[in-house]
């Protein structure tokens, strides 16, 4: 593993639209960039056996998750010619309609940004030790399963 500093990806609570707007704006000085790709995960108001999901409560094994995303980040940077990569995942209770995952990649041309963003989202969902507990309107819960 390289000596690069391990970046934190976790934020307490939802990722705000203002934060996302500011992240985009921060790139206007990086004029070599020609394409951005953004994925935002939003908590869905699912209906499961007649009960409505009102929020998802996220927890993580943070140390392991941060080491793993560091590895993934390096692999993706090696694989695609990216200028930038930003990843933010919520912890705590995120209400239906709020953003819980924000992945943002940028490159000179569009394809590496799009492909890297997609690959990051897939790997975040399958490889990071993060768990979502779906909270129903009646305060009961079930543990989310990724498909």
């Amino acid at each position, binding site marked *: 593993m390289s000596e690069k500093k391990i970046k934190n990806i976790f934020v307490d609570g939802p990722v705000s639209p203002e934060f996302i707007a500011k992240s985009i704006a921060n790139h206007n000085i990086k004029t070599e960039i020609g394409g951005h790709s953004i994925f935002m*995960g939003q908590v869905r108001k699912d209906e499961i056996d007649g009960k409505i999901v009102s929020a998802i409560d*996220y*927890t*993580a*094994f943070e*140390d*392991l998750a941060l*080491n*793993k995303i560091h590895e993934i980040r390096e692999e993706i940077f090696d694989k695609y010619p990216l200028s930038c990569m930003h990843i933010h*995942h919520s912890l705590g209770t995120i209400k239906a309609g709020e953003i*819980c*995952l924000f992945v943002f990649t940028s490159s000179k041309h569009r394809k590496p940004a799009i492909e890297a963003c997609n690959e990051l*989202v897939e790997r*975040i*969902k*399958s*490889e*990071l*030790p*993060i*768990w*979502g*507990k779906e909270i129903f309107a009646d305060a009961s819960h079930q*543990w*989310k*399963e*990724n498909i």
Partner: protein
Amino acid sequence: MEIEIISFGKISEFISNQKITIDCGTTDELKTHLENIFPQLAGMKYKLALNKNLVQQNSEIKNSDSIAIMPPFSGG
């Protein structure tokens, strides 16, 4: 020897973080032991992490190691 176990997700609802005394030397032996003392674990899909490293093959356990018990991930 004594090890520390920590659990996550659904598993944290029936295994609390605690120190346990074991006489297993490897993670495979520990799995069998854990499934005996926590019968709900048997039949569930889960992974272990040994001292914050995902266990991908049978590994040796030492005194005061930390073991995390993790159900399938569901982030994003």
